[in-house]
């Protein structure tokens, strides 16, 4: 599936949920499904800056694609991480670099994915793209 189609899928899933509280609960549940993040990778140099809570991200190359692992102590951020990785994980560096980040705004949770927002998802996407450079 393309990045665009994946975003569209998640958008439709979220649009079906009636209010923000319920959307967040779904996002938190997505975080529970996240691939476990090794404790030994919770290093300062792997922290994504610009977030009120800690957020760690590592990337590794697997054949042609990039595989990311990430986590946060804050469950909403962790859920958002899961959501982002569902969209961006195991893709080629070109795909990750070239996709239009504005599309994420269409996910449509009020202010959620705007850069500068304290949950740091904007910074996460930036870092994901940087690691694909």
């Amino acid at each position, binding site marked *: 599936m393309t990045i665009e189609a994946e975003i569209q899928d998640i958008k439709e899933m979220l649009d079906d949920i009636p209010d923000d*509280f319920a959307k967040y*609960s779904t996002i938190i549940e997505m975080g529970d499904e996240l691939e476990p993040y090794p404790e030994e990778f919770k290093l300062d140099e792997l922290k994504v800056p610009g977030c009120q809570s800690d957020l760690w991200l590592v990337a590794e190359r697997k054949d042609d694609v990039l595989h990311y692992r990430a986590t946060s102590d804050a*469950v909403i951020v962790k859920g958002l991480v899961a959501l982002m990785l569902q969209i961006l994980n195991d893709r080629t560096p070109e795909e990750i670099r070239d996709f239009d980040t504005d599309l994420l705004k269409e996910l449509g949770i009020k202010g959620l994915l705007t850069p500068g927002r304290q949950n740091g998802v904007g910074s996460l996407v930036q870092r994901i793209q940087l690691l694909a450079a």
Partner: protein
Amino acid sequence: MNKKCDFQILSDLNDDCVYLDSAATSLTPRCVTDKIGEYYNCYNANIHRGIHDWAERATGEYEGVRPIVKEFIGADQDKEIVFTSGTTHGINIVANCFCSDWTSKDTVILSEAEHHANIVPWQQLKARQGLRIEVIPLLPDGHLDFNRLSMAIQQVKGRCIVSMSILPNATGIMLDYQQVSQMSRDHGATVLFDGAQSVPRVKSDVSYCDFLVFSGHKIYGPTGVGILYAGDGLLDEMPPYMGGGDMIKSVRFERTTYNDMPWRYEAGTTNIAGVIGLGVALNWVENIGIENIYQHEKEISDYAQKQLNGLDRVSVLYPEAEKLGLVVFTVNEAQSVDVATLLNTQGVAVRSGYLCAEPILVSQVGRGVLRASFGIYTTQDDIDRLIDALNKVMAIL
């Protein structure tokens, strides 16, 4: 007391918002926003300069606020009232002007519970000229350790300023400021009180201090304006903080003579509309009566603390101590950002994080906290909505 009707922002349009972040910024009643609008719409001119009608009206309205502030805080003279941009600015003026020639022989004494605004300016002074900084810890019940204060004051060799918040924004526990004042003055120390949180809810009395600072935007006034009260003579001889227009008597390239108090500290064009708006805010508070505001907020704070203490997973900071205006808490096994984000989806606005008071919260809590804070418009119903929303949030966290 229901004052919600005085606030446009709390009208039907925003009916489902419970604003519990007044310690960061209080809401602004319509009489204040109207007055600010009136300045811009009716006599928008600079002060102290022009001799045309608008300039005279603006100057009159602006200078008319000084006696209002003077009365409000119990000062003696208009010239003791300096208009600043806020609490932070006021503390910086004292640190940089009153303490301009202080060195490693001189001491500033702070409490552990200070806002960054009352920590960083002193650290900067220390970095430049080696001032000593003594920090007095709180007792386990959240009150200041007066034994430690007494010891610290007695050890002072040179000059000393005791600079403390009367109502710390990270604890909500009133400082026994009268005792701080007496202890300090018995040893010849100067006293600066940060009244950012106290002036809006407790009667202020500057006879207990040499300097008092507070912000307009926490007392139902505009942002970007505040007050520095400086006791008579304390700042008269000091080199001013900022140079520019309006703070001088005469300027030649050879020599400039500074203006008198308080204008020597009001360089450039100040926040004219803000000052005028602050005057209206203080009159509005005075009309309600600071005693009534105190009573109301005491009741709300007691109620909020009781309700929060009743929730199993909630830990209130200093749960037994009396609070005024705010209650700080955490939810066990949940990050404060998560809680605050989810409360926001329920229309409940609280503050999360370290509240610009990292030292005390890092040592007492070790992680970001939540703060519910109150104003004259806060009702018991608002607290009930907070508790309901918290229960709902805790069910999924």
